[in-house]
């Protein structure tokens, strides 16, 4: 028997809430903003899921890959966020006090210590496409082939992007 659409989405939510939050957090650098954007992502995701159905719904045009779908919404939401604020990603890293969120909780304070804080800030200075592949591969343990499908590029290109991304990240950390 096919799960109800609510149960399917509930499962998707549990599977992706940490991943999407982390993905957004590393791009915007603040807890409250990350929570706001993540809320929007899952609200939009649920609306689409209700309308189209999930992979197991048997609908006409179901969402086949909920993870990819949510990451796409998250990407757009982050772009919208920076557009609304009228600031570019690169400028925001140095100029915006929100990068170190004053509302950061105890858990965040712990992980922001020493080099982790440096890596986090350095991540925000990376090119967006490099951020994406590094987060997916090294933080979410996504295989290169899956990333290739997600961004619709050959696996070889993804490997090159990872290599360049790591090199850039290393340079940024060392310069910092």
């Amino acid at each position: 028997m096919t799960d109800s659409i609510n149960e399917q989405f509930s499962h998707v939510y549990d599977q992706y809430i940490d991943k999407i939050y982390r993905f957004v957090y590393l791009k915007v650098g603040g807890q409250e903003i990350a929570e706001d954007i993540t809320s929007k992502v899952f609200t939009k995701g649920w609306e689409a899921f209700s309308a189209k159905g999930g992979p197991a719904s048997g609908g006409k045009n179901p969402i086949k890959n909920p993870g990819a779908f949510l990451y796409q919404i998250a990407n757009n939401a982050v772009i919208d966020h920076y557009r609304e604020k009228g600031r570019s990603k690169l400028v925001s890293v140095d100029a915006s006090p929100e990068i170190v969120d004053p509302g950061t909780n105890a858990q965040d304070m712990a992980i922001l210590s020493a080099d982790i804080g440096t890596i986090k800030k350095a991540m925000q200075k990376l090119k967006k496409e490099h951020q994406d592949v590094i987060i997916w591969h090294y933080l979410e343990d996504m295989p290169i082939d899956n990333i290739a499908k997600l961004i619709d590029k050959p696996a070889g290109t993804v490997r090159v992007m990872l290599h360049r991304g790591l090199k850039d990240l290393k340079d940024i950390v060392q310069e910092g």
Partner: protein
Amino acid sequence: MTKITEEQLIESLNQLKEIKPNKEWASLLKSQILAEEKNVVQPARFVGIMDTLRFIFAPRKLAYSFAVVLFLAVGIFGLNKFVPTGKVPQQPASLASQTPAAVKEQINVTVKGLVQNLKNNPDQNPQAIRILAKTLADMPGDVVSSSDVQDLYKTLVANQIVDIQKTTLTDAQQKILLDTVTLYNTGKYNEALEKVLLINK
């Protein structure tokens, strides 16, 4: 210049996996999203309550709002804690067959449980309380005017005021807080709740 190897870099990246959302926030967001839409997800025991409320009170908003309150109550306090009188909400089938007065009593039991728990545990997650307060603010007049719900409003507002007083406020927010305290002191708890939610936006 700090030298770092690729292995150290990857190790540091792995540590970023520790970034996770607040569990309570994630749980509340899930229940809020699923409860907002037409295909409302409710625990089985609340389906009957919702159906009955929808029948008794014409505005569907109430039924949904109250269902969310129940949902949050369980989420915040746990089912076995949020009804201190021991009167656990009844099963849907039996509740659905009861009179409107009996269902209203069920609401009162739940609200009393919430009030008691808020008083006993004032340090609840502010975001959870905020969502609960917003949900209550959406309820229609006949339910809001009951003494139990007024007591819940009073407790929620007091909780929010104490919480907000710990934070740094802008001049505008300080003015709203003063207005909130004035309304609270004059017993206008639902108006105070609306005010205090402005600060929390």
